[in-house]
């Protein structure tokens, strides 16, 4: 049923990417994804690919493992490519029935495919190399400036980390409740989707009741341990930038400059021969 749920997809090993500060990795991924959407130009994509390959090598995650991460988006990928390949207007290359393959179509679907693959790989790389705890931690740091707009940054981060903590407990509880209901003759397996959904009601209601009871207990335990909001809190493991992070930021800036340079100027200097 609901066994072995892993939150996030942290791949435990020791590598340069793993040791980077989680903040660096979030900024890195963010800038990288941004860079994919600004220009449509083969040179830019070549640089982006190179950057991603270096990242993957530094992460010590097996290539096959990374490629497998593309599985959930295969359908989306195929759909995008097909639609763009056959239904983009422009200079006709081949045509049959209602389908026309154009040069623009080929170019566009190639770009989109590259964009999607790079995007998924880059974001997977971040979650594979960073534990969920560190990610929530880093988000709290990075979102701090939002405090001036009265965004409850600390509270949001605390909620995220408590949610992560309680997912395995609630999964356990769901299993227990389901077993208890099965023992009383409940049937979760047969029937169509509507019947199956309905049969989950006797699981969901006790689960909610117990979740609220737990929330109440937890709140009391937090209060008992002097929790008083984010004000004046210190940390066991404060995030600290190391030399590797500075190097990573410098490389990121070089990358960004390179991309902008290529996107703005190079394209005009070396027109792509088609």
């Amino acid at each position, binding site marked *: 049923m609901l066994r072995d749920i892993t939150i996030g997809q942290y791949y435990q090993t020791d590598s340069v990417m793993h040791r980077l500060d989680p903040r660096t990795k979030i900024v890195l991924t963010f800038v990288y994804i941004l860079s994919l959407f600004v220009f449509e130009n083969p040179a830019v994509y070549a640089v982006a690919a190179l950057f991603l390959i270096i990242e993957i090598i530094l992460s010590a995650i097996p290539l096959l493992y990374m490629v497998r991460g593309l599985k959930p988006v295969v359908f989306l990928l195929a759909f995008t490519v097909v639609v763009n390949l056959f239904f983009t207007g422009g200079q006709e290359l081949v045509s049959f029935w209602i389908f026309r393959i154009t040069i623009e179509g080929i170019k566009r679907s190639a770009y989109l495919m590259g964009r999607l693959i790079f995007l998924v790989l880059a974001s997977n790389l971040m979650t594979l190399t960073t534990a*969920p*705890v560190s990610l929530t931690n880093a988000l709290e740091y990075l979102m701090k400036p939002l405090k001036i707009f009265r965004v409850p940054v600390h509270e949001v981060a605390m909620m995220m*980390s*408590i949610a*992560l*903590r309680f997912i*395995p*407990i609630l999964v356990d509880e769901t299993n227990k409740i389901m077993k208890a209901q099965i023992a009383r003759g409940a049937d979760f397996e047969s029937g169509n989707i509507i019947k199956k959904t309905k049969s989950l009601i006797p699981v969901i209601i006790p689960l909610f009741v117990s979740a609220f009871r*737990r929330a109440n*207990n*937890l709140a*009391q*335990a*937090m*209060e*008992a*341990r*002097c*929790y*008083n909001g984010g004000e*004046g*809190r*210190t*940390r*066991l*493991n*404060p995030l600290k930038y190391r030399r590797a992070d500075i190097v990573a930021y410098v490389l990121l800036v070089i990358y960004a400059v390179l991309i902008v340079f290529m996107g703005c100027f190079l394209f005009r200097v070396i027109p792509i021969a088609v």
Partner: protein
Amino acid sequence: MPIVDLKNVTFEYIRRDNEGNVDGITTAVDGVSLKVSPGEFIAVLGANGSGKSTLAKHINALLFPTEGAVFVDGMNTADEDKLLDIRSTAGMIFQNPDDQIIGQIVEEDVAFGPENLGVPSEEIRKRVYDSLDAVGMSEYGLRSPDRLSGGQKQRVSIASVIAMKPKCIIMDEPTAMIDPEGRREILETAHRLNKEEKITVILITHYMEEVVDADRVFVMDKGKVAMSGTPAEIFSRVSELQELRLTVPQATELAHRLKMAGVPIRDGILTGDELVSAIMKLWSAAR
């Protein structure tokens, strides 16, 4: 100065029916006065609904008395400015280990209290590992709490509380959801902290076996203190305890029954060993 001083504490709450109308008033704690000296190991015994947990929550300033006053290390819990001081002086351990572990990693959970108190990072690290050492869990610092047994989780909870350097810890039925092995671990830890770290312990429980080694025992019934004294004094009053729906330890009960049957055995036997030596003494005297 007593570390915990309850002065005529009464706590009432309003019962409501399903529509939210007032149904009546329940007096959970009814005029309880007791003093605990620093370094003592106190046990509060009581059946379900005797008000013992409600009383415990007053000491940690989670509940406030309707009447009377609670002083922790000289601080009145009604004083809002002292709230954090009171909570870090008198740490609280709850029944369900899963519902009081906040961190996703053991060391982060133990750090939660000191983090709230604004302790510097270096000092937190030291406190975390000192506390884990004190409960014998230091090699689990980087584990996920989900992978621990009930007894281990509860010991982490104890470490989390002692990381705040409390003078007193209140344990609210810490063994109720734990297997016998884990129960033994928790009690041993509590007694060791009491002897070695000189931390005052207030143990709330309904298991009589757990109070045998306490310095003083209070038995609660219907919100009032029904009996108080040393474990030996309390356990010599077997029939009164049974009236309060409490089960006495097996050795005590056997001694009590022997006495009722006319055997001139002494009162206040708590353990199997004591019972054996008392019987041996009687037997050799009879020969």
